[in-house]
């Protein structure tokens, strides 16, 4: 009875916070500056990407390095679907686009779905040889896959328009799309992690041999985590494409993956809420850290900014965290309203 009440209360709290968020977004959309809106869009998309990346790396403990590749696949897929045949004919000046793609045209929502499905399909193709053998090799296979996607994006002129990339993609992505996607992704992954599938994935992370021994099909659970993670990464890529409106093979570099890796490590590998918090922190933090790359003054002396210094700082942070603070912000814990309520009660009692 008490549990039931708690459950009802927690649902209400969640609903209330979503409504508060939506109201906030409504006002930002009306009155926010372009800069604020851009950062908010990035926060949402990166939060969803980080939460889905955390599913395979954190929850299941399999080291994938391909979210940038999946995002690239998603970006190209959805962009090619939302561009009209006429636009595509105009863009592909070196080699005309191949047949079925040249006439295909889909609304934004379906193009995003297709982006996710396409990325998931490639995850399936990669997962099959890797998970059958050693999970270890997933890291190198996905890293190699990132290179392959870049090579194909550069060379398959009649599909991807090669190094020229795709320009003039409609800017469909707004705060509703990006935050809608983030909320749906977080909700689905949260439920997935708490289901029996999620339990099995965690068991695989802690001890794969033991998980196998108690009858968990480790192959398919790793596969499920990998495919689901790729699906959302693909959609995220599609949203990014329709936010930036220009995509090229150099857009989705390993840098994107590295950013996501920082986020999930900082948040605590395996914690969905941790990934969410860290995604917002890092997206915002890397804006703040821009100052180290610009000239600044210390004690009247002009210090020239060092381009690229942010990445050096990020990599040092990552290594130091692995050595000294492996738990990150949240460890493997999750935020829950019960916990928040307990905290609040304790706070009021003190007074």
């Amino acid at each position: 009875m008490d549990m039931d009440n708690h459950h009802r209360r927690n649902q209400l709290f969640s609903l209330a916070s979503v409504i508060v968020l939506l109201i906030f977004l409504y006002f930002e959309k009306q009155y926010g500056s372009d800069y604020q809106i851009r950062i908010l869009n990035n926060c949402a998309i990166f939060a969803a990407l980080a939460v889905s990346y955390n599913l395979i790396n954190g929850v299941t403990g399999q080291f994938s390095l391909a979210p940038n590749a999946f995002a690239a696949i998603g970006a190209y897929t959805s962009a090619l679907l939302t561009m009209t045949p006429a636009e595509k004919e105009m863009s592909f000046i070196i080699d005309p686009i191949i047949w079925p793609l040249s006439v295909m045209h889909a609304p934004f929502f379906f193009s995003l779905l297709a982006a996710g499905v396409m990325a998931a399909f490639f995850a399936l193709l990669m997962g099959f040889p890797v998970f059958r053998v050693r999970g270890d090799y997933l890291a190198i296979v996905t890293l190699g896959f990132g290179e392959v996607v870049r090579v194909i994006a550069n060379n398959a002129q009649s599909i991807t328009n090669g190094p020229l990339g795709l320009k003039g993609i409609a800017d469909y992505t707004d705060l509703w799309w990006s935050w809608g996607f983030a909320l749906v992704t977080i909700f689905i992954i949260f439920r997935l992690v708490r289901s029996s599938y999620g339990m099995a994935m965690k068991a695989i992370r802690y001890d794969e041999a033991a998980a196998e021994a108690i009858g968990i099909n480790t192959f398919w659970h790793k596969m499920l985590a990998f495919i689901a993670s790729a699906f959302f990464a693909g959609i995220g890529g599609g949203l990014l494409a329709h936010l930036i409106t220009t995509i090229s093979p150099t857009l989705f570099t390993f840098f994107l993956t590295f950013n996501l890796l920082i986020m999930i490590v900082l948040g605590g590998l395996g914690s969905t809420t941790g990934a969410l918090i860290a995604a917002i922190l890092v997206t915002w933090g890397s804006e703040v850290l821009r100052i180290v790359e610009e000239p600044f003054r210390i004690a009247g002396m002009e210090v020239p900014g060092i381009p690229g210094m942010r990445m050096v700082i990020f990599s040092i942070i990552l290594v130091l965290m692995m050595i000294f603070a492996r738990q990150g912000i949240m460890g493997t814990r999750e935020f829950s309203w019960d916990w928040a309520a307990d905290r609040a009660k304790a706070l009021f009692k003190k007074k």
Partner: protein
Amino acid sequence: MDISFFVQQVINGIALGSLYGLIAIGYTLVYGILRLINFAHGDVMMVGCYVAFYGIFLFSFPWWASFLIAILLTAVVGVMIDIGAYRPVRNAPRISALITAIGVSFLLENLGLVVFGGRPKAFVRPDFFSGVRDIAGVRILDLNIWTLLITLILLGIILLVIYRTKAGRAMRCIAFDMETTRLMGVDINRIIAVTFAIGSAAAAAGGIMWAMRYPQINPLMGILPGLKAFVAAVLGGIGNVTGAMLGGLLIGIIEIVMVAFQPDLAGYRDAMAFAILILILLFRPTGLMGTKLPD
């Protein structure tokens, strides 16, 4: 098809492949012992190239002295990475070690960009390696002959160390069972440091010859050769040094021959190693010479 053209391409392939092999040795040793994919290995190679470059063009050392210094210093860098980054996470979950490795790799690349600058630097080939020989109608670059010779010598030395010295025996023991080796009184950390030194030195040697082949260097030059060398290590059977060299040679020859006979596919040459990796995992996960590693 012109037979001399074919022979020439195969020789090019062997020369390129032996470089992959040299880099692969570091991967295979470290993976064999620690089950760690040392992502930073390709970047360690890059560091070696820059040390050699600055030795020649900044300090005006003779090329051979500069190369030797580069190889030694790179070995030191490898050991420092092990001590500073990998040793603290040795008993952590495996994924922590992998994340550390990717962090070190990214650190070296970006530190390289900041310190050395992103613009590629011309690596002028010493005259000693620049001659061209004409043997029975096949034109062979001196560099290719030297590459092969140096590779064979280094491979010989490394095999001697692994199979004929106490440290080498300890390495093989650790690869088999780390805990038991520790109980036998072996200083595990020292042996692992030696392993990193050997692997990094081999990578530096490979990298310098790589820099002479494509006479320029840049801070991101280690990524692709590193990736291909890892595939070479898997192809040869991970944990097996001779296998790594064999895998490297195969990948080098396949790559060069593919580009020579199917110029249309030249753009896809960097994707080829990946296709090979997937095929190995599907059909022969233990590689050509490997045995199944204990976990």
